[in-house]
């Protein structure tokens, strides 16, 4: 959930009234937001870098507001204020208009080379805008918020904003080998080739995070004006030449990306939010975008869409009973202008609300406007009889009886290192049917466990000070690579297996104890000792166990696991010191 930070004084000024912190908190809640924190720049710096560093920082109060992830229209002060004013019926939702300039509109020509790296571009112009320091800061901040959220850290979309009066159309969006791109980037004093820029920004705390998006491409995207001035090299950096300032009157905005839908959304959000400050508010000057195939499209789209719903739909989904007029009014308060048309309600989805893609989103807004706290709690009439999963039922029953047999339950991780399931147990990882993780951050998460034994031995290792003997067990799942089709309807190449593992750790190995536990478990599962229908154990060889002290367990002539005295090398590798016997069985045989 993105957090938007706004100055309290500017917010209240724009809202045209004061609130106490509690009142504003309440207002946020009603509107489906959360006032996360009340702080100041000084407080933030003081907390993060110490009091000394905070000296001289601003102590203007900031409200940090949590905004739902897909509400891009609430990511800046302008949008928040507009949303709240409409919600409280102190203003009407503005109507955003795309206008054609008196002369020809600006053109952005996309060349074929961009297909290899970043094929989409859209653009618009904000004409006669009046910046102040606060508006300018908010404009920059909104771009950053969009970059971090909907733009997926610039991978999907990157925004460039330019002082239109410093450049001249027609603009060309193309892609060139990095050695052929030469310009003075924003806030630098000299020209660099794209190759040099990439190495320059390797150490830039901010920009280095975006380099990976294009660095392995043969060509880099770049936008030129008709005089060959570089506007930007998306998604990395703009040119210094066209940078906007407080005095900028006309802003050229371009959004390039790999996802056209998102690029259009981002452009719509920027222009709808900041056209408020244009001489003719809420109008945006169009730009013609010409595609390699010659097709021409006009941007920004600023598309309005109408959905037709009924009050009945809203009432039944939310569990309320409101008239069509009332529902229409609630939706209008959520910036979704609605009108009752006979039996139906026509709901207009503005270009700011790209998050509304289905009638269920309209229903959610109606519920917010109605007030979640006003909805009466009801009990569904759904009558069902419950069932336990047989495997979990067996697990629950066995756990209780293992504890009753004097063993203590451990709870260990399903993920571990390769070493834990192989080397430490005297096995070779290539012989083990383990599932391997592609992107572990540390060795602790290299594989999913194939046996519960390492977890129990590590538990002993962390509890060496406890009085002996230690009698531990765990019943849980291991994961095995399995090429056969299992019970699950989709084949992923692996399956879980429910295991029971128990260990006895003492000054003497206590094989008889662990053997006795097996007998008790078999008794609980109604399997009698003996050949054929019964259970028996038979000498086996296993590198995890001490030679001659390991047996395989057969139930109805099927092997279900092993028991024995652990190999001294295994004991040492887990950094424990006493003899230990273990039992490790698959309990899925007993379903």
């Amino acid at each position, binding site marked *: 959930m993105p957090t938007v930070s706004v100055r309290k004084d500017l917010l209240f000024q724009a809202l045209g009234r004061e609130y106490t912190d509690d009142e504003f908190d309440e207002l946020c809640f009603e509107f489906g937001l959360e006032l996360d924190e009340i702080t100041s720049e000084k407080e933030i710096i003081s907390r993060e870098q110490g009091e000394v560093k905070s000296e001289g920082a601003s102590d203007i109060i900031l409200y940090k507001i949590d905004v739902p992830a897909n509400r891009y229209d609430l990511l800046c002060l302008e949008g928040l204020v507009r949303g709240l004013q409409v919600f409280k019926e102190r203003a009407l939702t503005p109507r955003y208009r795309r206008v054609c300039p008196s002369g020809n509109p600006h053109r952005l020509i996309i060349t074929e080379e961009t297909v290899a790296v970043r094929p989409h571009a859209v653009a618009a112009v904000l004409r006669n805008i009046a910046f102040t320091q606060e508006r300018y800061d908010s404009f920059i901040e909104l771009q950053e918020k969009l970059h971090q959220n909907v733009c997926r850290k610039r991978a999907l979309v990157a925004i460039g904003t330019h002082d239109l009066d410093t450049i001249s159309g027609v603009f060309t969006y193309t892609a060139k080998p990095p050695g052929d791109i030469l310009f003075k980037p924003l806030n630098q004093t000299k020209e660099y080739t794209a190759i040099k820029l990439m190495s320059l920004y390797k150490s830039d705390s901010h920009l280095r995070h975006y380099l990976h998006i294009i660095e392995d491409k043969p060509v880099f995207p770049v936008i030129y004006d008709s005089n060959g001035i570089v506007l930007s090299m998306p998604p990395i950096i703009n040119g210094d030449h066209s940078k906007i300032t407080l005095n900028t009157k006309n802003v050229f905005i371009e959004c390039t990306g790999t996802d056209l839908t998102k690029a259009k959304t981002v452009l719509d959000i920027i222009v709808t939010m900041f056209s408020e400050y244009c001489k003719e508010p809420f109008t945006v000057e169009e730009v013609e975008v010409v595609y390699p195939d010659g097709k021409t499209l006009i941007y920004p789209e600023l598309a309005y869409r109408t959905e037709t719903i009924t009050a009945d739909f809203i009432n039944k989904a939310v569990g309320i009973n409101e008239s069509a007029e009332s529902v229409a009014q609630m939706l209008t308060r959520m910036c979704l202008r609605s009108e009752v048309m006979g039996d139906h309600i026509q709901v207009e989805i503005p270009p700011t609300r790209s998050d509304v893609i*289905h009638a*269920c989103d309209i229903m959610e807004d109606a519920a917010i406007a109605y007030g979640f706290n006003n909805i009466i709690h009801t*009990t569904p009439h759904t009558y*069902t009889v*419950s069932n336990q999963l047989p495997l979990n039922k067996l697990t629950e029953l066995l756990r209780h009886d293992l*504890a009753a047999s004097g063993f203590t339950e451990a709870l260990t991780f399903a*993920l571990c290192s390769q070493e834990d399931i192989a080397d430490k147990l005297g096995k070779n990882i290539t012989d083990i049917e383990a599932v391997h993780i592609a992107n572990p951050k540390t060795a602790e998460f290299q594989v999913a466990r194939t046996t519960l034994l390492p977890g129990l031995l590590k538990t002993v290792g962390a509890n060496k000070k406890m009085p002996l003997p230690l009698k531990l067990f765990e019943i849980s799942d291991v994961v095995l690579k399995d090429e056969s089709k299992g019970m699950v*309807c989709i084949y992923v190449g*692996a399956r879980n297996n429910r295991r029971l593992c128990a260990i006895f750790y003492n000054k003497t190995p206590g094989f008889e104890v662990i053997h006795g536990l097996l007998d008790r478990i078999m008794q609980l599962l109604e399997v009698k000792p003996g050949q054929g229908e019964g259970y028996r154990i038979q000498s086996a060889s296993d590198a995890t166990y001490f030679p001659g002290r390991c047996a395989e367990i057969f139930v109805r002539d099927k092997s279900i696991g092993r028991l024995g005295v652990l190999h001294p090398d295994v004991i040492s590798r887990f950094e424990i010191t006493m003899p230990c016997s273990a039992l490790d069985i698959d309990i899925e045989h007993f379903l």
Partner: protein
Amino acid sequence: MADNGLLESVLQHVEKVDDGVDSQAVAISLGLDHQTVVGAVKSLQALGDVILAEQRTSKHWELTGEGADIAERGSHEARVFGAIPKDGLLQTELMKLPSGRVGFSKAMSSKWIRMDKGHEGGPRVFRMVETIEDVVRQKLLLVRQGKSAELEEKDKNELKKRKLLTEVTVKSYWITKGGSFSTSITKQETELTAEMISSGSWRDKKFKLYNFDALGMALDCGHLHPLMKVRTQFRQIFLEMGFTEMPTNNFIESSFWNFDSLFQPQQHPARDQHDTFFLSDPALAHEFPQDYLEKVKKVHTEGGYGSQGYKYDWKLEEARKNVLRTHTTAVSARMLYRLAQQEEFTPVKYFSIDRVFRNETLDATHLAEFHQIEGVVADYGLTLGDLMGVLHQFFTKLGLKKWVEVGNSGIFRPEMLLPMGLPEGVTVIAWGLSLERPTMIKYGINNIRELVGHKVNLQMVYDSPLCRLDS
């Protein structure tokens, strides 16, 4: 323990008096050290209601070592007097006597003796009287006989100043007869035995009292893990509410079921390498229900079912990537898909509690794996009010309403349900929370590593109480 003879002597003393006797008096009367009698009193108390003993403190006068010596052999001055023969004694000789210096000056001031300084052969001491009365000794003898009360206060202070008497505080017992008073002692048994039961001899025996202030023996027992105890309770709650358990024993999922089927777009940040564990082996899933897969692809790409869709290029390659499931909702999706394949829809209530995995940055409250609790209800015409009602009932059973904050809830989107083939009009409400968070709150644990994993202190497991969520 004091021997029975002593105990019986004490009891005989107590028998003689109706309103009780002081242990000091008993000691004097038996000619024993008081502490010996106190020991006997304690042994008698341990026998039960034989005697009642009330502790008292009293002050009394006692002879010092020197005082006792004087009571025995006379005062220093009397000894000096007795050492002088008729014809006197040289002063130098007299001073050599043990009592010489002190006795000389006292006898002089009592005018029992005189000194002739000019006597030939050196100063010589002579008796002045025929007989003397050794008052100091007499007074000390009175104290020794326990009759210090007969002495005047002035005398006692005088003797105290001479370090012959000292005033001591004595803790003694006032002993009276108990409910089962008897002058004879029966031997106490430590424990009841089988022999006593069969012979009936327990009827005549006295049993040593237990010390109920001590703790019992630590038992050698097994224990269940606290988190698993909480899991049992959550299962119980769901079962009480009529929810059926889902098969969640598949940690490995395809991205298709983990994300795509839930209408989560392929560019969603949760599908990033930094949040999700992908597999290198087996890296890809095969074989999906082809029909359904096409519908999922279409709803992402173009929309449908009343939706605009996400309008992006949906890739099968992305959906095939295997992951360690990031939520159990992947299983809910499979279950709802299976439900949709039924000939006729039947309402269901499902739950699960099982492990999920996140490739997150670890801290005091986050591990790479945790248990997710999930509840799902699917039926025609469910409302937001129903969702809130069910949640309310569920959290009421947990006992704490504020626990609502630890979870998430919602209504599944039509873009998820309709491609599965669920009938239009069927609503699915769901909620989820972690098992660890409420457990940490319940047991007051701040660091998740103290609760889960091999590093937990087994003592914590040994000591953990019953889990009753609603109390």
